């Protein structure tokens, strides 16, 4: 097979993995913008999405189209409880303590998932079959199209929510200046809660749409969470297009690195990029030093 087709395959694989990183990354940045903390439990919501769907499918025997929204809803509920029980009681704490609390929360959620569902890896059925789609010599699965489609849709919704709804605008206001937002009558605490719910739901959905390809287990959240974090850092912690591009860049570089150099360096690539960005352009690849966030 000639190099062109190979490259196309690397690109396609990279884009679909990258879309997932982007979705998880946006979850990071929504919470960061509303609260100033990095929620390291974000990866666990990704895990919860997959595992809850699996649970609803296999134990309660629900059809896929009911199981998915229900799993997203349940994960959002976990996000809500997490904010209420772990973050809100400590609102006066410094961001660093809160970040550590999210790590603790992540370990707790992972542990509970292990106790409830066991340590086995499980696979979810694809949404619409496993017949590969040929594209100029390279192949895609229908599930990849679902991933790309749902990611685009969510990003559109996200954009619309933050620019055209009262809640979205209020959340943006909180991110610019929580104190001023509070003074004009925005309930900042409610916005923080909302940010956790939205992030949890987005993470869960990301977890569900990848599960048919990558399978799921109680511990998939760690790596996916870290990759999502990388995407958010590349995008300068914006919850808009730059994090999406950050995720896609990461996915494609990983895929090219694995294909052209050596797959041993795949994870190293992600973390080297993370370090480079943090050292050289802490405002993100596209941000101006004082970029506006959300």
């Amino acid at each position, binding site marked *: *097979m000639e190099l062109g087709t*190979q490259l196309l*395959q*690397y690109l396609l*694989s*990279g884009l*679909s*993995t990258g879309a997932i990183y982007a979705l998880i990354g946006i979850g990071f940045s929504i919470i960061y913008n509303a609260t100033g903390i990095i929620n390291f439990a974000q990866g666990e919501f990704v895990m919860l999405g997959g595992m809850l769907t699996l649970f609803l499918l296999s134990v309660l025997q629900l059809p896929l189209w009911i199981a998915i929204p229900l799993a997203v809803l349940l994960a959002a509920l976990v996000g809500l409880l997490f904010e209420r029980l772990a973050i809100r009681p400590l609102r006066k704490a410094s961001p660093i303590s809160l970040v550590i609390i999210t790590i603790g929360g992540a370990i707790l959620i992972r542990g509970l998932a292990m106790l409830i569902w066991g*340590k*086995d*890896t*499980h*696979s979810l059925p694809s949404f619409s079959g*496993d017949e*590969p789609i040929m594209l100029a010599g390279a*192949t*895609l*699965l229908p599930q990849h199209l679902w991933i790309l489609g749902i990611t685009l849709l969510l990003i559109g919704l996200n954009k619309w929510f933050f620019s055209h709804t009262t809640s979205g605008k209020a959340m943006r206001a909180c991110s610019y200046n929580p104190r001023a937002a509070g003074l004009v009558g925005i309930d900042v605490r409610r916005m923080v809660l909302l940010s956790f719910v939205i992030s949890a739901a987005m993470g869960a959905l990301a977890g569900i749409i*990848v599960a048919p*390809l*990558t*399978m799921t*287990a109680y*511990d*998939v959240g*760690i*790596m*996916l969470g870290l990759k999502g974090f990388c995407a958010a850092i590349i995008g300068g912690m914006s919850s808009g297009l730059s994090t999406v591009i950050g995720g896609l860049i990461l996915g494609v570089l*990983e*895929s*090219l690195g*694995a*294909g*052209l150099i*050596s*797959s*041993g360096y*795949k*994870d190293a690539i992600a973390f080297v990029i993370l370090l480079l960005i943090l050292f050289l352009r802490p405002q993100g690849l596209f941000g101006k030093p004082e970029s506006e966030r959300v």
Partner: protein
Amino acid sequence: MLARMTTVLTLIATLLLTASFAVAADTIKIGGLFAVTGPPAFLGEPERNTAKMVVDEINKAGGIKGQKLELIVYDTAGDATKAVQMATKLIRDDQVVAIIGPSTTGETMAVIPVVEKARIPLISCAAGSKITDPVKRYVFKTAQNDALAVERIYDYLKRQKQNRVALLTVSDGFGASGREQLKSLAPRFGMQIVVDDTYGPKDTDMTSQLTKIRASQAQVLIVWGTNPGPAVIAKNAKQLGLKLPLYMSHGVSSKKFIALAGDAAEGVRLPSGKVVVADVLPKKDPQKASLLAFVKDYQNHYKQEGDHFGGHAWDAIMLLKGTIERGAITAESIRDGLENTRQFHGIGGTFTYSATDHAGLNKDAFVMVEIRNKDWSLAK
């Protein structure tokens, strides 16, 4: 009132304990070290279950030459430090005559100095070849060496007249060991490794590696890893329409792999211990009787199919039983007895230990199986 009650109860409890201790003095004490919790729990749990089941059955049938076995099991949680502590406890406090386990190579290597010093025979359930290479006087093992699985695959490929192989191994202990064996045994079977690539244990997409392999001259792809990686690879290979025959390691020889990979598992070949194909083995296979007994027994006790890992513990207990039946009673005589074991048809294979071989198996411990119609069948 309450205080007196407590005193009385304590007294009764003490009496009961001493009484059971007195009975226990006539039994043969065997220690078990299994990773029942922790990451290697998938090994330790079936091992412990099987060991308990077999010991119960031996005792129910009247013990060995009238003597009951007593199995004392500790959980090592896959932690080498804990394994050493527990081994010391078994030897010093419980005064066992032999130890079965630990479940992993790392733990076993840590425990070896302890048992060698105390002169207590150890039958490890871990697979690493360094456990018995070089031979240690008191250390035996029942799990098959990786090298035997590699030999089985290469032997099969040689008969298929294919010699250009691509390797895709997981970057953890299991994959590294497999990769080493695959590379070092290749010249002996005339194999030529044209691609040597790896993937991470948590990787979720291996299409990049497979695309590279597709572009190479390889005739077959050998994947060395444990779930879920190989299942992802099988799915990716199907997605890419990879034409190469797919060979995997014994690390995925459980129904779990078929469940994970679904349709993509069809046609995958791998060397496997004989447990999974017990019912389709030819009648003349000397292990068949043992295998069927074990599988049926485990099913009755635990409502699950017995697997290879349980089989390692089964073999270990049965080897001990054989030794004791032949007259061994002290730790030293059990060691000698184990070393003199010839042609024991167990679950992992047919064991023949000697002064220079404490692993006891050859490549006949593995059969090549092929996944057909979501089930195992013997590859021709």
